[in-house]
């Protein structure tokens, strides 16, 4: 059986595992959803009212029945109703996901547009000062946690230019693209920094490996210029691991960057899940974690397929 097909068969099994795991985990959190939803007012509930609320959210049943009800709903595309928002879980996820998606795309664009040229430049100038500087910068970039980058960016902006990042109400890109971009650019740079550093390191090291290959030497000995060999022969192959790396990283970013969203006060998926966990909003935690895990696995599957499709050596081996 070929590898991608095997992965496809395992996929539903893992999703079921994720559902069960989250379902049990969130129910182990001390406290109950009704109290978390109403706060101090929950003390005013009569036992009858509390029972009615429990019954409304289906919390009066045992775990097995709760899971079965929820899971049967999920299979029909119904993720239940959030106790904190009083709205269907899917509606809430789709409210917050576009921001997370936009942020992930922007950071990836930043990372690739800086990382690939810089990595190739460094490889082409191996052991010269420019290579050394790029390597040091990349090493530092990779070693600085993104939330620290975010804090330092905010500090440098406020001290250097006397401006603070726009942290008012979030403006969706569909309403005002420019205002949206103004809000998104700093978080995107923040997340893009470590990402770019990883891309630089990856493209540099694969490029160096490839430049030692026989076919590169052959192309050079045919009289092809070094520049043309790098761009025409080496680059397409050097990009394959970079694509894998970016795919995996992109998958992570789709899960929401909890810390960076927190620092820049962005209502993305990461903060939604964080709030939902703290509020014991069972349906919302279950639904959004399942959503995130689903995206993550889909992206990884696509990366694997792209990897096989892009590298002729792998493609021919499997045939």
């Amino acid at each position, binding site marked *: 059986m070929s590898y991608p097909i095997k992965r496809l068969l*395992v996929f539903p*099994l*893992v*999703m079921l*595992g*994720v559902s069960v*795991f*989250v379902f049990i*985990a*969130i129910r*182990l*959190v*001390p406290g109950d959803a009704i109290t978390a939803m109403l706060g101090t007012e929950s003390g005013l509930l009569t036992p009858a009212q509390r029972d009615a609320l429990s019954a409304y959210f289906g919390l009066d049943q045992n775990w097995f029945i709760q899971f079965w009800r929820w899971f049967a709903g999920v299979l029909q595309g119904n993720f239940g109703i959030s106790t904190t928002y009083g709205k269907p879980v899917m509606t809430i996820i789709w409210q917050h996901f576009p921001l997370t998606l936009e942020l992930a795309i922007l950071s990836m664009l930043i990372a690739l547009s800086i990382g690939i040229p810089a990595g190739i430049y460094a490889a082409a100038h191996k052991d010269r000062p420019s290579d050394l500087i790029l390597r040091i910068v990349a*090493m*530092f970039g*990779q*070693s*600085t*946690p993104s*939330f*620290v980058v975010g*804090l*330092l960016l*905010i*500090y440098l902006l*406020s*001290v250097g230019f006397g401006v603070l990042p726009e942290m008012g109400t979030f403006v969706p890109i569909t309403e005002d693209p420019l205002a949206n971009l103004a809000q998104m650019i700093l978080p995107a740079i923040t997340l893009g920094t470590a990402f770019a550093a990883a891309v630089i390191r990856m493209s540099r090291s694969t490029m160096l490996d490839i430049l030692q290959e026989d076919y590169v030497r052959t192309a050079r000995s045919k009289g092809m210029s070094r520049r043309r060999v790098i761009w025409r022969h080496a680059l397409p192959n050097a990009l394959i691991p970079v694509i894998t790396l970016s795919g995996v990283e992109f998958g*992570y970013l789709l*899960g*929401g960057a*909890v*810390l960076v969203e*927190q*620092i820049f006060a962005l209502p993305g998926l*990461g903060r939604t*899940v*964080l709030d939902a*966990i*703290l509020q014991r909003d069972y349906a919302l*935690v279950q639904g959004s*974690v399942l959503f*995130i*895990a689903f995206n*993550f*696995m889909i992206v990884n599957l696509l990366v694997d397929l792209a990897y096989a499709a892009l590298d002729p050596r792998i493609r021919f081996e499997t045939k």
Partner: protein
Amino acid sequence: MTALLKDIARHPSGRIGLITFAVFLIAAVMGKTGFTPYDPLMQDRIARLQGPSAAHWFGTDLFGRDVFSRLMDGIGQSFIISFFSVGIASLLGAVLGLTAAWFAGLWDGAVMRFMDVLLAFPAILLALLIITIFGPGTWTSVLAIAIVYTPIFTRVVRGPALSLRRRDFVDAARTFGSSRRYIMTRHLALNLVAPLTVQVTLALAWALVTEAGLSFLGLGTQPPNASLGLMLSDARNLMELAPWLLWMPAVALMLAVLSFNLLGDALRDILDPKTRRRLA
């Protein structure tokens, strides 16, 4: 072991990583054993928010506590959490990976699918979920980070273990009548040390970042105890007034992570037979 240290010291980035790590380790040990210039918890209402000076090298915070002392304490805290969590994760991962590769079949399937489930979560979310179950604190952080990184170690061990299992020297050992346990601990485990060592240093870097992130969200180390993440979180609202509160923990965290990344790079070069041949 000493030969490995010598190799690292000869490797250009390994040397820098080793020195930085040594400095941080000394600071961490001194911070946790009380050899700090000031008591990290002692408040001094008169000396609040003072910039770096001869008396307070890295300045003081909002409560007049000495930032340098708190940094040493915080680094100690971060190191304890990182070392314990990575220790547990690598041990657990090694056992699971080895047994999965050796017994194959149902056990292998069960272990690896469960690891797939854990890997399908973004790391920080999984850690958050675990912490909300058990409540924030030092040992919960250790547990959370350990669970997050166990699947990675399991995979790192299982892959090479699978290919090693089919190698001749394992068959040879079995024909000599060596027991399964002996082969597993003696032959396989030793051959897996190289990939594990590299992964351990990289995981330590990640654990430091995760610990700081959890503390930053208020779910790790609890005040008034010091931790790098908490110090960064405190610095957020004071960064214009007292920038040293931001810079000191930020740079410390960055350098600590950097030292592990450099060590990881050096170890990969030294332990990977492919690159070693190229270096030779």
